[in-house]
């Protein structure tokens, strides 16, 4: 198994290098550093100010080859934007935001908790509700409850998340006035009041696709031979669901769950923006809108690392959930 993990890590490393290169190309060849400067300094500044900004932020260097050095010199290739881009990312030196010069690592530290406070309850609540409801629906398979649930799930899946958010804010925040429409507080005593609405909406928005997915898995398991055997032996429907079907359906559930967990740290782009939660999702959206290359590349880099890490983790957890799985 270890050989497999090392091999996957190596593949992952190559993927990350590729991601970083693509990101660099997108920012510096499709756009150009002056655009970053213009967004940071403002539209009305003089060309000298843009030049100074580029110099202050190290964007005045050549992209790939530095002609100031002789052909034989290694510095010709290392004293370039591309080389420093790779060096900074691979050494986890994220630097400062291009938009406002805030240290990015500080931003990540500040944003991770609010993101987790939102995404973790949504993830956990969504998981519990969707598994419980899917089991229930599978239990009532072929009844009107099952059919109604499928219709409702398909309807729920067809609605965009944004609509859930806007309608949720309107109904619960504005009309019923149960919770604040948006906002956040660092005070643990009151933060739940701000999180209640986005968490409720987040769970609700995830129920449609999740219930459909888990219901399909449970129904597939429900028709297997071991279920028939258990039933023939007199096992009750409830016990069958909880002790046999759920346990055997763990593999696809694990795949979905383990690949999701790492991304809880990077937050939710839409919810954080609409609910004013100062997390990493909101930070990413801001970086995109503000041409903030240094922040965006950090978020994409972290996203790529998490994705690769999650995939390896999923494979490893397979061996735990199902002893028949061998990694080699």
């Amino acid at each position, binding site marked *: 198994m270890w050989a497999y993990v090392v091999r996957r890590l190596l593949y992952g490393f190559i993927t990350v290098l590729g991601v970083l290169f693509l990101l660099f190309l997108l920012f510096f060849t499709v756009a150009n550093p002056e655009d970053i400067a*213009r967004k940071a300094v403002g539209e009305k500044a003089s060309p000298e100010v843009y030049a100074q900004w580029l110099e202050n932020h190290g964007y005045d260097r050549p992209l790939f080859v530095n002609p100031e050095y002789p052909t034989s010199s290694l510095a010709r290739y290392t004293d370039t934007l591309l080389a420093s881009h790779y060096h900074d990312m691979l050494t986890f030196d994220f630097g400062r935001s291009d938009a406002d010069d805030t240290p990015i690592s500080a931003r990540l530290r500040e944003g991770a908790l609010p993101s987790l406070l939102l995404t973790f309850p949504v993830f956990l609540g969504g998981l519990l509700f969707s598994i419980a409801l899917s089991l229930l629906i599978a239990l009532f398979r072929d009844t009107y409850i099952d059919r109604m649930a499928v219709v409702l799930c398909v309807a729920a899946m067809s609605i965009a998340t944004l609509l859930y958010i806007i309608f949720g804010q309107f109904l619960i925040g504005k009309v019923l006035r149960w919770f*604040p429409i*948006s906002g956040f507080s660092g005070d643990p005593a009151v933060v739940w009041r701000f999180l209640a609405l986005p968490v409720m909406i987040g769970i609700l928005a995830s129920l449609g696709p999740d219930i459909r997915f888990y219901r399909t898995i449970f129904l597939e398991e429900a028709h297997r031979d071991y279920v028939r055997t258990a039933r023939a032996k007199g096992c009750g429907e409830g016990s069958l669901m909880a002790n046999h079907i759920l346990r055997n359906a763990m593999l696809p559930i694990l795949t979905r769950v383990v690949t999701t967990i790492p991304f809880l740290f990077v937050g939710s782009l839409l919810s954080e923006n609409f609910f*004013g939660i100062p997390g990493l999702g909101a930070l990413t959206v801001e970086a995109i809108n503000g041409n903030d290359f240094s922040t965006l590349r950090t978020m994409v880099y972290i996203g790529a690392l998490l994705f690769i890490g999650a995939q390896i983790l999923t494979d490893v957890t397979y061996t735990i959930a199902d002893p028949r799985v061998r990694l080699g």
Partner: protein
Amino acid sequence: MLQVVSACSNDPYPSDDQTRKVLYRAFPEAPKTLDPAVAYTTSAHAITGNIYEGLLEYDYVARPYQLVPALATGVPEAVSAPDGTIRYHFELRPGVRYADDACFELSESESSKSESSHSEIPDSPGSTPTTRSVTTRDLEFSFQRLADPAVASPIAQNFAKIRGFRQFSANLEQRRERDASFAARPPHEQYALVGGIEGVHLLNELELDLVLDAPYPQLLYWLAMPFTAPVPWEAVAYYDGEEGRPHFRDHPVGTGPFVLTRYNKQALMVLEQNPRWREWPQPAPGHIAPLGPRAGSRLPFIERVEYRREKEAIPAFGKFLQGYYDGSAIIEESFDRVIQEDQLSSDMAERGMRLEKSVEPGIYYLGFNMDDPVVGAPAGERGRKLRQAMSLVIDIDELSRLFLNGRGVPANSPVPPGLFGYDPEYRNPYREVDVERAKQLLIEAGYPGGIDAETGRPLKLGFDTPDTTSTAQLRSQFHIDAWRSIGIDVELRATTYNQFQEKMRNGAFQLFRWGWIADYPDPENFLFLLESSNGRTRSGGPNTANFSNAEYDALFAEMKDRPNDERRGELIREMQSILERERPWIELYHPEDYSLVSPWLENVKPFGMSYPMLKYYDIDPDERARLRAEWNQPIVWPAYALAGLSVLIVVPGIFTFFRERV
């Protein structure tokens, strides 16, 4: 869940603040920097404008805009010297102190070693100083920072007429390049070693002269913005971002009515009253109706201002309607519900909301690339008539009705209302819709019905915009349809902002849509947008149309530095007539701001430019608490209904299940 819901409220604030004068505002975009020499966005000025004070400011209520003294004792007159220099004499108000800050401990520890350049004596000898008085040295330091290339102030070029300003900048840069140990010193020491700016002449602790090489009356407007506000050298040296200290750009230290006590750009920024701030003269009674009875009271009225981050407009507006923000712009989605027949809807009026309208000093326009061989100057009379024809078919009233909810004053020239040179009676003959005349002009231009008479091919033009949203595309289509009505085929080229900028820089465009918001209320700040030395492709300047007309340039040169006298008015009229004829722009509208004010917020007067207005605002917290309670009673019955419905659905299901399966 039922229990949770019954205990809930949508109030996002601590209940202790209910009875306090706390102003709540939403901020969609975080300031990039709070360094007054660099901050140049509305979001940053909302903070810096209330923390820092310049020598001058604007009268809060007078229109047209009028400069009044702030830290200075008066608004100086320009005095010309025989050698051609211009001198402005300023006298600082005595006894102005900075807000309390830890950086002033540095003043004590370093006062001995930097005595030659900064010899401030702590205000409370014997104890650790937390503030000190403002002197002309602080103003000198602020001007030096503006000139410092490393500070990268976006408006530095506007001070280039101060004698020795550029020289100081060059000397500083050369010395830094030559001497690494010099570059490692704190900025105030570097400035002292390089020598001051010759034109910033300190007479004593409270008096200074600014000496300019050439007339530049607009300088006074810049002094009313936070850029030149006095900054303590201690703050710049101390707040260096090292060893856990914040950077100066995130930790402002000024003399204004408020201090920043919390600065979380992602969530919350808090301003509180600066106890060091002095008494401030009020506008005359009756000058602004609500302020009348309070004339003579101590400013500011509000205790605290909380800026809460709201990245999206819809939730922010929802919270304003619930009384949790004290003022708001009107979002597109709710405009028709809030404004009916250009007035507040009866529902809003019944709630006591107020509508404040103000025309912003700005303009939106369609521009032609005057370097283009088809629509520009190289096409000569053909091009001119083509531009005139295209101008004649853009119906601004219809545009305003369709896309602006009727907001915006139709523009006839670049100069907006409220500024010297704006003539409300002036009607640009090419901004009145006349399709027949436009067709005739097209024939005269050699494009009858939009067909090039020389080649027999249809005329095809490109229209660049930096906005790819569907609303922007619809708006662009409105213009394209108008041009199509006289046979001109215009292709929309909607690109990203970066690509648009690239095209503008390279001159690779024919038509574009753009806008400008003034820095200061002077016609020069609009008419310079068409002066040839500011051409975008030639110099990277703001003359995006690349308009170049020697007569216009000469008139501009004479107009720009003149006082607002009759001759200046004549010059502006002459420039307008050139623009009327040449049509480098199709003027669209001067933006009009509609903002809503809650019933408990008083002394509000929209300003249109960055301005420290918060010191005038007042709040009636009791009225606010009463109305908030009235507007925000939670409706709990749906929670019970939902619970009942769930039971109604699930219970028969369970019965069915047991009947069929068990």
